């Protein structure tokens, strides 16, 4: 079963084109959606998750017409939104139980087993009776993924899950995702390049509502081999270099800018060959440099 997105478009009332003719094919496995804030990732996620309507295009999940058959999608869906709150005076156990019921696990005994197992899986068992309002950010996200995984979803949509998490929590999160079965379609949207690199077998780059790249991350990086050069320059020279070369990105290292430049042909003049990274891929794609 695949998720196919075909020419999906959405324009908000204020004229902003959130999605512009987006076409993607998402096979089972981890699929990364990479883009900056405002690129359209969340809009795309919410549309697939049946929370929003689209102006044009279609989305199919196997035989299911996602935009039309919302109930059908919901039965297979697990969703972790980018931003969510909690009810006051409700514990993690109660909330998970509540959501499991809503997802259709109506048999009480089964539900109990499921909820308890899930709490242990995400290492929240000791805190299960505490009110969710008292959870730290990392614990909140663990709860979030726990609820998304209830009811064995076939399509898992995870929207910016590791923003604001410390490296330890992020790690824990990746480990959880990695355990998800191979037949599950997982769409992970993020602006953290490492997430995609570490986890995803396929990715897409979204920028201003349009798809700038779709394919395997490794292949994309390899394709840049030998075409990325780096050089340390002085702050004042930056503008000059930007005019003369195809500057991909510029970072500060020990107080001085270090620029990455794209060039088909070898470069001299103080440049050294850089090992291309997915970040380079990102900026070259959206910059139209390649």
């Amino acid at each position, binding site marked *: 079963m695949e998720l196919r997105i075909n020419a999906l478009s959405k324009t908000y009332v204020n004229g902003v084109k959130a999605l512009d003719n987006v076409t993607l094919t998402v096979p089972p496995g981890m699929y990364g959606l990479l883009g900056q804030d405002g690129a359209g990732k969340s809009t795309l996620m919410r549309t697939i998750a049946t*929370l929003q309507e689209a102006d044009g295009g279609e989305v199919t999940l196997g035989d299911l017409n996602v935009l039309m058959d919302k109930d059908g999608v919901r039965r297979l869906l697990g969703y972790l939104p980018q931003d969510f709150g909690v009810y006051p005076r409700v514990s993690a156990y109660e909330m998970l139980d509540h959501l499991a019921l809503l997802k259709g696990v109506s048999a009480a005994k089964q539900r109990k087993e499921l909820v308890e197992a899930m709490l242990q899986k995400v290492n929240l068992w000791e805190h299960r009776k505490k009110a969710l309002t008292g959870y730290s950010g990392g614990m909140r996200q663990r709860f979030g993924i726990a609820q998304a995984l209830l009811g064995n979803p076939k399509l898992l949509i995870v929207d910016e899950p590791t923003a604001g998490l410390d490296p330890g929590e992020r790690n824990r999160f990746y480990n959880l995702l990695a*355990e998800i079965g191979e037949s599950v379609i997982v769409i992970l949207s993020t602006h953290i390049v490492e997430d995609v690199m570490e986890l995803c077998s396929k990715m897409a780059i979204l920028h201003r509502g349009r798809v700038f790249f779709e394919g395997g991350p490794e292949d994309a990086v390899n394709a840049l081999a030998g075409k990325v050069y780096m050089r340390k320059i002085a702050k004042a020279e930056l503008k000059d270099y930007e005019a003369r070369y195809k500057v991909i990105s510029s970072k500060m290292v020990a107080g001085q800018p270090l620029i990455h430049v794209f060039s088909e042909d070898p470069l001299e003049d103080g440049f050294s060959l850089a090992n291309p990274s997915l970040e380079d891929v990102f900026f070259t794609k959206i910059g139209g440099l390649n």
Partner: protein
Amino acid sequence: MFAELLRFELRYWLKAVMVWVFMVILGSLVFAATSTDQVTIGGSIGNTHRNAPYVIGTFYSIMGIFSMLMTTAFVNSAASRDFQYGTHQMVFSTPLKKAHYLLGRFIGSTLVAVIPMLGISVGMILAGFMPWIDAQRFGPIHWDAHLQGILTFALPNTFFVAAIVFVIAVLTRSTMASFLGTLVLLVGYIVTDVLTEDLDNERLAMLLDPFAIRTYSIMTKYWTVAERNTRALGWEGMMLANRLIWTGAGLVIFLLGYQRFSFSERSKKSKSAELESAEPAAIDIPVAQVSEGKATAWSQFAGLLKFEFWGLVKSTSFIVIMAAALMNTIPSIIFSAKEGYGNSSYPVTYFIVEVIQGSLYLFTISMITYYAGLLVWRERDARMDEIEDVTPSPTFIRYAAKFTALMGIMAILQAIMMLVGISTQTWLGYTRYQIGLYASKLFIYDFSFFVFLAVLAFFVHVLSPNKYVGYFGFVIFLVANAFVWDPLDVATRLVKYGSRPSYTYSDFFGYAPYFLTWWAFTLYWALFALLLCALTAVLWPRGKETALRIRWRNWQGEMRTAAMALGGLFLVFGAWLYYNNAVLNKLVGPKTALERQAQYEKKYKQYQKMTLPRITAIRYDIDIYPERRALRMKADQELVNNSNEAISSVHMVLDQNFDYDIQIDGARLESFDRDYGYQIYKLDPDMQPGEKRRMRYTVTREPRGIENSVRVMQLVQNGTFFNNGIAPQLGYQPEGELNDRNERRKRGLPEKDLMPALERDCTKNCMNTYLSNHSDWVSVETVISTSPDQIAVAPGSLLREWNDGGRRYFHYKVDKDSLNFYSFISAKYEVARGEWNGVKTEVYYHHEHPWNVEKMMRSIHLALDYCTKNFGPYMHKQARIIEFPRISTFAQAFPGTMPYSESIGFIARLEKPDDIDMVQYVVVHEMAHQWWAHQVIGANMQGATALSEMLAQYSSLMVMEHQYGRDQMRKFLEYEVDRYLSGRGRERLKERPLLTVEAQQGYIHYQKASAAIYYLKEMIGEDAVNRALRKTVERFAYAQPPYPTSHHLIDALREETPEHLRYLIRDLFEDITLFANRTVEATAKKRADGQYDVSIEVESKKLKADADGNEKECAMDDYVDIGAFAKPKDGKRYGETLYRERVKLQAGKRKFQFVTKEAPEKAGIDPFRLLIDRVPSDNLKKVSLSD
């Protein structure tokens, strides 16, 4: 730093809606209290200007209590805001000094909390500009008084409450604790207030009141009307002391909190220092079976219901509102089974459910309003909506669960109230619970309204883009629904959401008369509510697309067709109902009805003085059909021309609720104005002086279909009670005129007639009594039939009783020609029968109300004893008391019969032996009317009611005195004078002395009259008074016109009064006389022989008032009692009378010495309350014993 914090706080709040909403609420209350009579704050203000400084002070002091919860909201929020929103870590890590922080927040929020109080001034000033006010009752704007109100009450009171709340909030960091703390403070204040009510030590009372309400009232107690209109009380005298004490207390409390506050985090429970493993636990997630379909939906519903229910119940706001609701309602239930004269009645269930309605339902409606919003917006407020919305559960289950949770809570609340009611009844020793009545009233009649409200609330919130628009829209709708229809002249319930006919429960008929109409409209609105439910389910928000048309488009199928089917059904049913209301029955808009009343007067008042024949004899044939609420009354009456001119036309006024068929000998119907029920008959030939003619008529009522409101409650399934007012009335009837002054003015009508001015030796103007303009003394014979299980009663002796054709017949005849003023009754009665000197004494009562029947019987006998001995013979062969349903709550006297309402007298309960026996009091009063009104009746002139009511009161008082002794009379007189004094404060027109009292001035001809005639009796003796009364009866009983006036009575009394006491006649009856007596000092010293030398200093003042309430001091040379009393024995109200002397006093101070045999507890002037005193509570003073 501090200034900046202060400014921040002020700016934050001035933008908040809450401040202005509270200000509008307070302002509206004061506006209504100042410009209308619908709202009173702090009791009656008498003749003071409505915007006087005294009133301003009263409002400001009392509103301090109201605004306690407001202050709590502001201050608590300011104190805990940083913790609530998590900014405390940010704020506290700045170089902020504790002083600046706390002071800034505290002073800022306190100042802001004062702002709503300014609404008091705004409301009052605005009221002064309204077109409908009585300009005479308003003085100039006293800005200094407004300023004093703020400085003396608003600021210090708010400061005090704020200090307490601030400390609680800052130390506990819990909103719930703050509100509960305020509630405790409020309850504590009220309890202390009640407990210290009788505090003799006024100084202490003035200092102990943190809100200075008591202080203010004590300090202004003796202020004259002129002072109240001009003087504003500030920080002076005892008020200064009080303010210093309580402001100081507030400061101390604040400093306490200040000292204990710290910026550091509260030490949370130590986090377990475990290092959580980075690996997810190595367990398998069981594959859960996901299901759908009906069974799943049900368990989802059940689970959601529990979730929403507990979510509501655990929230702070719920706990606080519930606490407030219970604290308001439970005491109301417990303390409310009291009725007149401080007595109690049996705590009957219908009364308790009405108390529940009155005290709880405002909270219930507020809860529904508030929680509907919370429930609909819960997911979105918590930002859980995205997670919840993508689950595969059906949308309408969420709606169903939330709605059920809310209704469940309301139902539980009703059940709690029912338990409280039953417990209270049990505790008071009353076990007739009538569970069916509790259940039907609380869970059907009232609950249905809650359901309608909740359905609407959910619907409005689902349509609204945010919570506040939803609240606003719902409240606006409710207010509009209540108030917009009358001005639009729309009477039909079919457009007023949730409207059902009003009803009154009676033990006689339960809800039977209202049943059909009530259920018809309930079904109608239920259909509409179901339609709203369907629409709500269809439009329930899900996902991020909130435009309504998208929501509508997304919901196809069964819900939509269901909605449309319901809509159709609703319209069809509504049309049928409308046909019933408006075509089968008459339906008149409220404005049209008022207009018609005005037109009636404009067209026909010109005929008021027309000479008409008089009725002299009537024979009735009445058939009552209780189950159908139908009636047929046939009458054959004799008319006589008693005048000395020929009569050429006869006018009749008919009751619009009945059908008439009238025939007068030698007359034909010339015009029939159906809008007003006014008929004019032309007599051909003219009726000559002395000529007699016959008039025959039939009055019928046959209910048709379903009415908009249930009317003609005189005819019911059990307890039919109507008087001969439904007969065609001869001549123009002023009762049909508009009464309300504003409505009259609007329609160009002059002020309503008062009674004609009193004349001394009148002839032409005294030809009518004040009760009737078409008959004098008539003979009445009745044959009346009803259902076989009921008893029908008509005036007179029962001649014969028989059954025929499945109905029961009675034949009555009046023993002596009487006033044409009587009633016909039919109900399922038990009858208690007795006899007094050949007179049949009977009490007809509902079988479940036997408690006071024996006492009533005894009271009839006591009355007959006293009145026949002292006034004259009783002319009827029967004296009946008849119970009727509580649609009306009066007792009346007709010839030989006294109908008595179900909810007075019959349910009275005497607890203490020295309580005033209300039952006896009213029965004797009504029996006395058999002489005073039914033998001697006043002409239609000022002072007529003094003849009837004053003497009825007198008779009752004397019977009471003979039974309880002179010393007990003061309790009664206290109460009467109290009601007289408050009645004066409410007088809209002019107060009159007893001689010229108007018919509607009850506070004078009942209450003042009691005091006046009793005092006269005290001075000239019972025998003298009774001699005067007997002479009046001999002269005027059953007299033909011209009728007597109050002059005749007062003259008779004056004849029996010795010369040196004749001033009393003028003081008591011809003038409005008041006293200001008080005891300045009372001391006693024990003598060697064990007795006590008592010394008192008293002060006296005598005042006469004019019609507008202006009082002027006058010369005094009156007889006043002084006395001393021992400490009352346990359970008794009054102590033994140790000394009583009648002295002659002039105005001013005077000392008296006398001896008592034991230690006196209280001593003073006019201890038995014989004189009408402006401030009665200072007559007696506690005696201070010296050694």
